């Protein structure tokens, strides 16, 4: 980073104030003193084959549009991301990292792509035991309640609240905007606590109607 030193202000009577310096915005590459920035996302074993399957779908937007270098470290089982010189924005790296992380959590690529495109999307994760301590059969039944028959309850929540939900054993991940995440989380929590699906549906209907009315 070049900083034009301002000549000393020791001659007030003769010289007027020197012009203000103009700095161009820093490039992503130049941040942190010109060094390259890395991000590393570990790949869980169950996402290994899906990663292989969808690699090109992941790689293309990251490299082409975000202008971030991406590679898979097979030995370490990690996806590495690196800034390039022509990376426009430093936040791109973070976005790409979030995108890859979302994929690793279990989200589909078209859903995870939304992270790249929109700023206000977040991923929230919590466990079933955070809501209520369940053991054995109760836990299994709770998970079944969450998904519903053929996943219809989960889809119902997703469609009404415009979120994406991943139920991985006892972990639950929600991808969406902040308010929508809240609604989805409330529905999921009520399901965990034992309310029947019909009750959740009615609440969802009300909420979605309200959301639709807003616009």
């Amino acid at each position, binding site marked *: 980073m070049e900083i034009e030193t301002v000549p000393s202000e020791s001659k007030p009577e003769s010289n007027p104030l020197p012009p203000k310096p103009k700095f161009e915005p820093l490039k992503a590459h130049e941040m942190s003193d010109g060094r390259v920035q890395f991000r590393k996302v570990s790949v869980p074993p169950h996402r290994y084959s899906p990663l292989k399957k969808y690699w090109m779908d992941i790689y293309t937007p990251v490299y082409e549009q975000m202008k971030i270098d991406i590679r898979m470290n097979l030995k370490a089982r990690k996806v590495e991301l690196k800034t390039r010189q022509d990376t426009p924005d430093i936040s791109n790296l973070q976005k790409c990292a979030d995108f890859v992380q979302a994929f690793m959590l279990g989200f589909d690529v*078209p*859903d995870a792509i939304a992270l790249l495109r929109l700023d206000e999307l977040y991923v929230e994760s919590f466990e079933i035991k955070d809501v209520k301590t369940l053991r054995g059969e109760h836990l299994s039944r709770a998970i079944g309640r969450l998904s519903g028959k053929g996943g219809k309850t989960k889809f119902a929540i997703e469609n009404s609240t415009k979120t994406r939900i991943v139920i991985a054993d006892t972990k639950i991940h929600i991808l969406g905007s902040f308010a929508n995440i809240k609604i989805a989380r409330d529905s999921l929590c009520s399901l965990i606590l034992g309310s029947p699906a019909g009750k959740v549906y009615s609440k969802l209907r009300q909420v979605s109607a309200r959301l639709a009315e807003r616009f």
Partner: protein
Amino acid sequence: MIPSAMVSSTETALESLHHIKSTEPPEWLVPKQELSQAVRAASKLLFSSLKPYCPKSPFDQLLTEGFDVEQIWQQIDLQSQPLLSSLRREVKKFEKHPEEISKLKDGGVGGGEKKKKVLEQIETDNVVNDDEDDDDMDMDEDDDDEEEEDEEGEEEEKERGTEEESENEGEEKGGIEDKFLKIKELQEYLEEDEAREFGLKKKKTKAESKKEEEDTEEEGDDDDEDENEGSEDDDDEAEEEEDELGLFDGNDEEDEDDLENARYEDFFSRKKNKSSKEKAKSRDMLEEDSGSDDEQDVDKRKDGPSKHEKELDKLRSKIEEMEKANLDPKVWTMRGEVTAAQRQKNSALEVDLDFEHNVRPAPVITEEVTASLEDLIKTRISEGLFDDVQKARTSSSKAPREIKELDESKSKKGLAEVYEEEFVQKTDPASALLTFSDELKKEASMLFKKLCLKLDALSHFHFTPKPVVEDMSIQTNVPALAMEEIAPMAVSDAAMLAPEEVFSGKGDIKEEAELTKAERKRRRANKKRKFKAEAAKRMGKKA
């Protein structure tokens, strides 16, 4: 004082007495100087004449000049009080020992003669005699009329009483005579009352009968009526009293004592534990002045209760009944709100209760009623006029609200696309894409078109169908319902593709389990041959 002067004073006093006696009663109403002077002189005389019989009197003579009426009275009182008590003692003594009376009688024959004179006088009313006794008797009558100077009248009566006693002790026992108390009368009445109550008849001695005769005759002083009747019935009374006296001898003394210690309560209170004698006494006291009724009643009760008596009894019993009814707790019917616990068992059945019925009484079913009902039914059936319930159509004023259906299938769009659409909708409402309901509408319109085509084919003679547009679409082997319905409620096993489309095979397809040993061997042999052939080929290639 000089005796001669005393003698002259006595004469003047006597004159004054005469004067007093001769004055008409109305003249006493107006205070006159000469009358008072005369009375004072007379009382002075009487006082001094009584002096020898009275041991304790402090005065030698009554001092009247310059003294107030009250003071004069006090002096007289001072003299007479101890005199009275001494007289009472004498009377008691005579009661205990009646024989002494006869002694006295014998001793005082002159007194007896005097007594006869007295009797004569009694029979002839208000005859004026120069005899002192007569004067005294008359004075009694005069004194009764007196209204003004009561104390002197009383005092004179007392003195007269005492004089009589001193002269005729045997005759007059009840010396304590005043307007309220006559002991002889009292005694007789008590005995009569007891005779009535107990119904005893006994004999009596001559002496007592004589005494009683005298008593009754003396009572006649006040009541002339008594005397006329009394002589006939006295004997009977006396006989009754004789018995009682025999029984209740001891009580006479008690009577005297009670009389001495008589109190207000005895006469004028209504205590229930009073003895019959006390009741009689009270009655006697109350009816003192009109004591004739007692005599009359007593006489008539012996025959049987009179009409008046009967009426009085009836009234009394009625009054008692009513009082009792008022005091007792009311009958349950008059008590206001009464629950079953507060009245006797089955007591409500006996009373004729009257209350409002809110329900119409059930109709009595008779043959006529049933006949009329049946006729009505027949007419209704023939007319077809049934009272069927018509369903009330609720007129909906507003259109039914659009219910947003929850999509329960996996969304086909990615999240990014969803947000993209949302963004586009916000920014550019014109480019609104098809919503879920619109898709439904599209589908519905498609179905209707097909239906119309079929109907046209059926109805037109010359029907030319529209050109079929070949639409290539991949049929996936998915349950049929899943494709046709967006929200499948039930899962159906019916598949879109026919079995031959799913599998195109030749020959006899056998399951693993169905294969015979020979066939299994053959299969393995074929596999080996193929493998060998490929291996040879590869070797050939390499080489």
